[in-house]
């Protein structure tokens, strides 16, 4: 009797937990892993007639046949058009016996025309579809169609998604890029006071290849950032300025600072860490925002035989590097203010500092206030460690 009761309860709870999930299909049909086509990158373009053109790069591993040991990765490029993104995506279904699967989509490339047209209508499908990851990275293509980048960036052994992966990793070495994922884009587009920025790539002619075999073909190169007014492309930040934006976004991982010494040599500083604080305050009825950047560097290279390991020289290097960073940051702020686009998130700092005032005053016309705001930049650059404190070869007074 006790068991009967327990079994009944158990049955009810199992049935209940299956049926009451809100899923219309109680038992979803399983998809076998070998029956799907992995889509790794997709390019979104605007097609004539207000249509959407999608170009996908798929990937699969095929065994080379015979021996069984030689397995090869291959990638295919497929194009499809549709009135909407979803329709275009569904049009892929016909091309292969396998089901196109967006669950492993890692990169979205948006063509220039589509970006100018407004990216929201193109991205909505990707943000809405449950299959697609929200942490995929989005790039904007400068000067070309995204489809061209996907198609031409795909070499026989190095696919477009591998190239984009490499570009993404720039971040760790040079901090000239900062990945922006789909979730962040949706968040920024939601917050009216913030402006969107997306890393930007372009197609270049591959003039020389490392193995020397073919110098033909195209390669993908990081261009910098593209920034948007609402969801429409508004301009570009060049590669050289891109690091300034990352200083402002507090997303510096590492980087290289080339500092000329007093005597014409060159010292290379490697950025170890950087932290940025934005402190808004009100002065004479005007919004001032103090940007404090704290950078810590290492000496990685010394060109010339000058001995710089004394307090005076190091202090000089610190000042110069601070100035360099300050200039980079200033350029970005000036650009942002001239366009009245707050793409580095000054609004967030103000919102958190003055929540009441924000609601009453700033939020309504933040773009104007932002353009008028005074940014006070202070950079504290330190050479805290110097690796080997070793005089360069040929230094006059070797201690």
């Amino acid at each position, binding site marked *: 009797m006790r068991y009967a009761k*327990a079994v009944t309860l*158990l049955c009810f709870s199992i049935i209940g*937990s299956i049926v009451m999930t809100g899923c219309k299909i109680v038992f979803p049909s399983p998809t*076998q892993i*070998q029956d799907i086509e992995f889509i790794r990158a997709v390019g979104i373009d605007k097609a004539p007639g207000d249509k959407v053109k999608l170009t996908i790069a798929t990937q*699969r*591993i095929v065994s080379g046949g015979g021996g069984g040991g030689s397995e090869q*990765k291959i990638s295919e490029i497929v194009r499809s058009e549709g009135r909407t993104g979803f329709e275009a995506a569904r049009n892929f279904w016909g091309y292969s016996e396998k089901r196109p699967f967006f669950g*492993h989509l890692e990169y979205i490339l948006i063509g220039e025309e589509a970006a100018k047209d407004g990216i929201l209508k193109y991205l909505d499908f990707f943000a809405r579809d449950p299959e697609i990851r929200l942490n995929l990275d989005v790039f904007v293509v400068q000067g070309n169609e995204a489809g061209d980048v996907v198609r031409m960036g795909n070499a026989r052994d190095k696919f477009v998604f591998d190239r984009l992966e490499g570009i993404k990793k720039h971040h760790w070495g040079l901090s000239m890029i900062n990945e922006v994922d789909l979730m962040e884009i949706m968040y920024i587009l939601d917050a009216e006071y913030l402006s969107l920025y997306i890393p930007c790539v372009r197609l270049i002619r591959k003039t020389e290849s490392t193995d020397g075999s073919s110098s033909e073909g195209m390669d993908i190169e990081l261009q910098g950032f593209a920034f948007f007014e609402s969801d429409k492309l508004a301009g570009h930040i060049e590669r050289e300025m891109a690091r300034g934006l990352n200083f402002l976004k507090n997303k510096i991982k590492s980087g290289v600072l080339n500092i000329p010494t007093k005597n014409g040599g060159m010292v290379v500083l490697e950025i170890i860490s950087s932290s940025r604080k934005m402190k808004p305050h009100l002065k004479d009825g005007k919004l001032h925002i103090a940007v404090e950047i704290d950078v810590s560097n290492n000496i990685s290279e010394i060109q010339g035989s000058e001995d710089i390991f004394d307090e005076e020289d190091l202090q000089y290097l610190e000042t110069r590097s601070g100035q360099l960073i300050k200039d980079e940051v200033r350029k970005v702020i000036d650009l942002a203010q001239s366009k009245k686009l707050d793409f580095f998130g000054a609004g967030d700092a103000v919102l958190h500092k003055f929540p009441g005032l924000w609601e009453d005053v700033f939020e309504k016309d933040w773009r104007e206030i932002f353009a008028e705001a005074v940014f006070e930049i202070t950079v504290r650059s330190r050479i805290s460690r110097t690796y080997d404190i070793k005089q360069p070869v040929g230094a006059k007074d070797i201690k």
Partner: protein
Amino acid sequence: MLKDPGKDRPKRRNRIIKKIDTAHEPENSMASGTGSEEAPGGTARTDGTPAGQSEAEPGLTSANVEGLLGGNSDIIFRRLHINGRKDLPVTMVFVDGMADTKSVDDYILKPLIQESSLGECSSTSEIIERISHGVIYHAAMEVRRTFAECVHDIVGGSVALIFDDVKTAVTFDIKGFHERSISEPTGENVIKGAKDSFVENLRTNTASIRMKMKNARLVIEEMKTGKQTATRIAIVYIRGLTNMRIVDELKRRLDNLDTDAVLSTGIIEEAIIDHKVSPFPQVITTERPDKFCSSIVEGRVGIIIDGLPVSIVIPGTFDAFLQAPEDYSQSFIVNSIIRLMRYALMFVTLFLPGFYISVSSFHIEMIPTDLALAITASKEGVPFLTFIEVIFMLLAFEVLVEAGLRLPKTIGQAVSVVGAVVVGQAAVDARLVSPAVVVIIAITAISSFTMPNQDFSNALRLWRFIFAIFSSIIGLYGLSIGAIILLNHLSSMEVFGVPYLSPFVGGDGKNMQDAIFRFPFSAQKKRPMSLRTTNKRRRGSV
């Protein structure tokens, strides 16, 4: 009818309990038990009336005994005349092979024929008097006045001298059965640790325990079960330490056991466990006296069954099945890591096939892209669903294990080589299964071999299939439902009033010194709380 002399304590149904409180008890405590009211063949459950009063009881004469046992080729009847006197006849009965013939010759037959003091006696009762006072020199001697007791002693291996005129028998326990000597444990080997194991003889086993625990409070009680076998079962615990409720409950359950034969631990195990429909073991079975003793010291109760080289310890809790005997001879740091790994592997062996089915059929986006591509490539050309593949491989593995167990050791190895290497490789080459599934099942199988307890491992084997089926229906969601059902099952189980999942449930997590990690012995201050021992602190005096 005659009654046993000095038998004035109240009889407790059919149970024979002999308490031995010191280590110096004579070897044959059983045969010299205070009384057996069982009919020959052992009515394990009588209606409570002493057998001596039963109507069908024949008189204790050699003719009656011969009538019952006479047809047996191995039972020897000798009619003798004490000291050559024809007026003092006696019948000697014993089972050839069970009694030590040389001892019978030297210590019973010889004095019986040669001892002149017996010849001076005028009556049989005087002879019995003298024998019981030591004319025949053997320590374990019993005067029997009922037919049943006498026959029971004979079939138990004793030599009986039956005096027909006074309907009395004197029995001597001279067992001489050839038993296996104590050898290394076969199933639970350790590198650093005792190399002895239990044997088939109950008395040798109890002696092994006494050898390890020279404790006056160690109690070894005995009872008999089995209508046809009358198997002796010893209950072992420490007075003043063990929770007597567990002991009493165990006795009650053993009392209620109604069976023909006790020839395996299973029958006892099934009789005493609470949840008979659970695949999980609820008693610990061990062949190692040291493990047995450490469990007793911890506050558990042990059962030894005559004729079986395996002992049972109750209550079996979850953590005990993941403790290996080797654990306690290693550094606690090393051992803690191994223990942690064992817990992790338990989850691996339980969930991995189901998890693989789930992620490769329902949640492909969960797999890292490169791995997903590799799995896809490995599955290229395999016509079966992942679920079918996994179940097929799991079954193949079970078949291999079973085949390896049943065959002799030498052929068993050949089976595993053929099964694993040849068939496995061929199946992969023929695209019947994908290499990924082979790897998954291999990991699952090897993980299951790390489980110290075979019964526990078997339960996991069963649940592994259940999880695989759940996963094949609704993926990870099904796997979670399965896991909840399993957790519910385990947490609703109690063994002798002890929560099965202790020390993970109850006790506010205070009693975890010997669970996932093994703390140093000095930090293990208390005995398992869930056992509710009367002596709570380890090393505490009673």
